[in-house]
C-alpha cells in the first residue's frame, strides 16, 4: 500500500505529468501515422530516456505505448488505413461508419472502448499480475499452434460474405509467411537472392501497401463508382455516441477486455488475434450480426477494447517474469535494463516504487488519451473532408516515409508500392485484404509451434488432445467451424419450409 501511495505522489509531480502529457500526445500521433508502429514509437523514445531518471523514463515509455495503440484506431476508422495489424479489425466497421457520416460516433466509441480495455488490463496488472503470469507459462507449443489456427479461422469467418475469397487471401498470406530463413534448419526459403527477405516478408510494408497505399490510390484514381466524389464523399457528423449505444456496448467491451488481457499475457501471440477473436465474439453474441462489417458500433468497441487490453496484458509477463509479451515490451525491457532494472519478480520488491509508478502512470495515460481523443475527434473528423486528390498523396507520402523508417531500407518502400497495387486490385475484385495480413502474422506462429510440438512429442499428434488447455482450444475450434455450418443449414431448411417450391 505504501508503494502505491508513493507511486501516486511520484506521478502527480509537475515533471511526471508533463512527461505523461507529452508521451501521450506523441504516442497518439505515432499511432495515427501509417507505418509508425507502437514498437517504433517506444524504440524512438529509448534514447531520450537515457538521461532521464528511471521513473520518468518508464512513464514516458508507458504513455507512448498505450496511446499509440489507441492512436491507430483514428486512421483505421476515418481513412481505413490501420497503422498496424492491431487496428485492422477496427476498420472493418469503423470505416463504413465514417462513410455513412458517423465518423465522430465511431471515434467516440473507439475512445471509450480503448479506455475501458486499457483500464481493465492495467487493473489486472496491478491486482493479479503474478497469478496471471502463470497463464503465460501454461501455454506451450501445442496451445500456440491451436491459438493461431483458431485466430486464422476466425479472421476468415469474419469476412464471411465471400468465404472462399477470404480463404484464398489467407492462403496467399500463409504462403508469404513461408519466405525467409527457417530457424529450425537454417534453410533459406524463397529469398529470390534478396537478403532483405532473410527475416521473412516484412509485415508492415505489406500492411501499409494493402491498406494505406491502396486507399491512397482509391482516393486519387477516379474509377466510375469507386472514387469518393461529391455524392459519396465522407460526410461530417458532430455527435458523440449516444449513452444507450455506449451502454449497449458495455458487455462487449467487458468480454473483449478479458480476451485482450489474456492474449496479451501470452508472449508472441499478437494483438490482432485478440482484436479479431473479440470482434467475432461480439458478432456471435449480437442480436443483429448482419450489421457487422457494415458499420456496427459494437464491432469498433470490441476491437478497440481488445487491442488496448493487450497493452496491460503484455506487461504482466514482462514485469513479473522478465519475459516480454510482444515486440513493444521487448523494447520496454531494453528501456528498463538501461536503468539497471532487470525485469523479474524483484521489480515488485526491490524496485517496487518505480514499478508501481509505471502502473499508476498507465492509468493516467489511458484517461489522458481518452480525454484528448474525445476533444480531438470533433476536429479529426474534418480530415475526411479533404478532397481525395489531396488526401491520397498525403497518405502516400506518410506511407513512404513510414515504410522507409522501419529499417532504413528502400526495398521495403518498393514492397509497399507493389502491395499497394495488389491491394487496389484485390479490393476491386472483392478479395478481403485482412485475412492476408493476419495470415502473415499467424503463419509463422502456426508453423514454428506446430513443428516445435511435433519435434518435442516425436510426431505424436495426440498431444493436442491430452493437455487440458489444448483440448479446450480444439473444442472451441471445432465449434467455431461447426456453428456457422449448422446455422446455415438450419436457415436453409427454414427457407425451404416457407417456400417449398425452392
Amino acid at each position, binding site marked *: 500500500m505504501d508503494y502505491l501511495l508513493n507511486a501516486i505522489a511520484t506521478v502527480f509531480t509537475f515533471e511526471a505529468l508533463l512527461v505523461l502529457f507529452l508521451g501521450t500526445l506523441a504516442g497518439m500521433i505515432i499511432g495515427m501515422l501509417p507505418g509508425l508502429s507502437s514498437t517504433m514509437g*517506444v*524504440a*524512438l523514445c*529509448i*534514447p531520450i530516456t*537515457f538521461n532521464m531518471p528511471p521513473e520518468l523514463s518508464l512513464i514516458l515509455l508507458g504513455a507512448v505505448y498505450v496511446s499509440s495503440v489507441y492512436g491507430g484506431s483514428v486512421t483505421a476508422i476515418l481513412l481505413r488505413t490501420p497503422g498496424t495489424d492491431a487496428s485492422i479489425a477496427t476498420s472493418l466497421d469503423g470505416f463504413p461508419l465514417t462513410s455513412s457520416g458517423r465518423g465522430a460516433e465511431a471515434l467516440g466509441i473507439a475512445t471509450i472502448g480503448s479506455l475501458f480495455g486499457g483500464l481493465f488490463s492495467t487493473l489486472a496488472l496491478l491486482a493479479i499480475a503474478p497469478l496471471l503470469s502463470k497463464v*503465460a*507459462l*501454461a*501455454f*506451450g*507449443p501445442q496451445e500456440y499452434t491451436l491459438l493461431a489456427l483458431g485466430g486464422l479461422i476466425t479472421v476468415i469467418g469474419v469476412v464471411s460474405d465471400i468465404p472462399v475469397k477470404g480463404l484464398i487471401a489467407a492462403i496467399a498470406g500463409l504462403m508469404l509467411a513461408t519466405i525467409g*530463413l*527457417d*530457424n*529450425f*534448419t*537454417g*534453410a*533459406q526459403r524463397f*529469398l529470390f*537472392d*534478396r*537478403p*532483405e527477405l*532473410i*527475416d521473412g516478408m516484412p509485415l508492415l510494408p505489406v500492411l501499409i501497401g494493402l491498406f494505406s497505399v491502396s486507399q491512397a490510390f482509391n482516393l486519387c484514381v477516379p474509377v466510375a463508382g469507386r472514387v469518393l466524389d461529391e455524392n459519396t464523399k465522407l460526410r461530417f457528423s458532430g455527435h458523440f455516441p449516444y449513452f444507450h449505444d455506449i451502454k449497449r456496448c458495455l458487455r462487449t467491451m467487458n468480454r473483449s477486455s478479458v480476451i485482450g488481457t489474456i492474449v496479451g499475457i501470452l*508472449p*508472441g501471440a499478437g494483438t490482432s488475434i485478440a482484436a479479431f477473436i473479440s470482434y467475432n465474439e461480439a458478432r456471435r453474441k449480437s442480436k443483429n450480426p448482419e450489421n457487422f462489417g457494415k458499420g456496427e458500433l459494437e464491432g469498433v468497441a470490441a476491437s478497440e477494447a481488445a487491442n488496448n487490453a493487450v497493452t496491460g496484458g503484455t506487461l504482466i*509477463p514482462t514485469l513479473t*517474469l*522478465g*519475459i*516480454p509479451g510482444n515486440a513493444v515490451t*521487448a*523494447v*520496454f*525491457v*531494453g*528501456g528498463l*535494463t*538501461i536503468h*539497471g532494472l*532487470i*525485469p*523479474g*519478480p*524483484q521489480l515488485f520488491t526491490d524496485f517496487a516504487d518505480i514499478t508501481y509508478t509505471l502502473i499508476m502512470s498507465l492509468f493516467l495515460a489511458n484517461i489522458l488519451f481518452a480525454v484528448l481523443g474525445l476533444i480531438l475527434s470533433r476536429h479529426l473528423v474534418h480530415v475526411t473532408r479533404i478532397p481525395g486528390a489531396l488526401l491520397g498523396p498525403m497518405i502516400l507520402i506518410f506511407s513512404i516515409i513510414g515504410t522507409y523508417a522501419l*529499417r*532504413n*531500407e528502400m526495398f521495403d518502400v518498393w514492397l509497399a508500392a507493389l502491395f499497394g497495387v495488389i491491394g487496389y486490385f484485390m479490393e476491386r475484385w472483392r478479395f478481403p485484404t485482412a485475412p492476408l495480413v493476419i495470415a502473415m502474422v499467424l503463419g509463422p506462429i502456426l508453423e*514454428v509451434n506446430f513443428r*516445435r510440438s511435433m*519435434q*518435442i512429442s*516425436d510426431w505424436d499428434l495426440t498431444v493436442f488432445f491430452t493437455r487440458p488447455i489444448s483440448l479446450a482450444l480444439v473444442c472451441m475450434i471445432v465449434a467455431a467451424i461447426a456453428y456457422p455450418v449448422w446455422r446455415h443449414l438450419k436457415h436453409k431448411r427454414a427457407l425451404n419450409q416457407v417456400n417449398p417450391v425452392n
Partner: protein
Amino acid sequence: MFKKTLLCAAVTVVASAVSLSSAVAAEYPTKPIKMVVAFGAGGSTDTMARIFAKYAEKYIGKRIIVINKTGAGGELGWTFLSRAKPDGYTIGLINSPGVEIYPFTRAETIQYNLEDIRPLVNVVTDPGVLAVSADSPYKTLNDFVAHIKANPGKVTVSHEGVGGDDHLAALTFGKKANVDMNFVAFNGNAEATAALLGGHIDAFEGNMSEAAAQIKSGAVRALAVWAPERVSAIPDVQTGREQGMDIISAASRGIAVPAGVPDDIYQKLMETAKKVVSDEGFRAELAKLNMPVNPMYGKDYEQFMQTTHDTLKSIWDVEPWIVK
C-alpha cells in the same frame, strides 16, 4: 565568359577538396558520427551501443548518432557498414560469431566481405549458459549428461536459431559429451525462457546476460557457463571446464569501421575507444546489465575474429549445420 566561370568554379572545387582532405585527419571529427547497429533499438546490442556512444561523445567531442539498420540477423547492418564511406564518420557494431560465419554459411547471397570491415575494439563477451528450470532434478552438468545418455534423442534443448552461437554451443556440447539431444529452435530468449519455465522443454541454451536475471532470481538453474573462467555476474555457476567439459562459446560485441579509414582517424577512434572501455562509469553500467567487458583492441581483435572464422569454417566444411 561562361567557360571561364566554369573553370574558376572547377579550380575552386578542386582546391577546396584538396585542402579539405588534409584538414580531415587533423581536425577529425568536425561533424557528428553515425554509429550503425545491426539490431533493433532496446535489444542488448543496441543498449550496449548507446551506452558506448554516450561515453565516446564525452571523449571525442562530437555527437554520436546511433542508427538501427536491422535485418537478416545483422547482415543488412554489416553490409551497410562495409559499404559506408571510409571517412571515420560511419562506425558500427559487429557481433561475433555472426559477422564471421555469414560469408560462408550464406555464401550464395552474402553482400559484404569480411575484409571490408576493420575491427576496432571488442567490448563485451557474453558467454553461453546451459540451464534447466529450478524444479528440474538435475543439479550438475554430469547429472544432466547421464540423463541424456539414458534417454537418447528425447531430451529437448532450446536454442535461438540454427547457426547462432547458442546453437553452435549446443552442438559442441552434444559432440563433446557424446550424447544425442532434441534441439528445438525458438525465436529469441523470451519465448525460450517461457517454454523452459512452463516445463515445455527440458533445458535452455542461451547467452548469460539474457539469462542472468532468471538465474539470480532462482527461477532457472544454470548447469554450466561456457567460459574459460567463472563469470562475476553469476559467480556460483561452474564453468564447463571445471566439470570436465571444455567448451568455450560466447557472443561478442565490438566496434568496427569500414576498411580504408585513414590511419590517423583510426588511431583517434582507437584512443577514444580505449578511454571509454577503461572508464569506470561505463564499466559500471555494463555490469548492471550483466554484460562482461572483455576488451580486445585492433590487431588482437582482428586475430580473435580470424580464429573464430577459421574454427567455425573448419567445422562447417566437414559437417555443415545447415542442410542445403
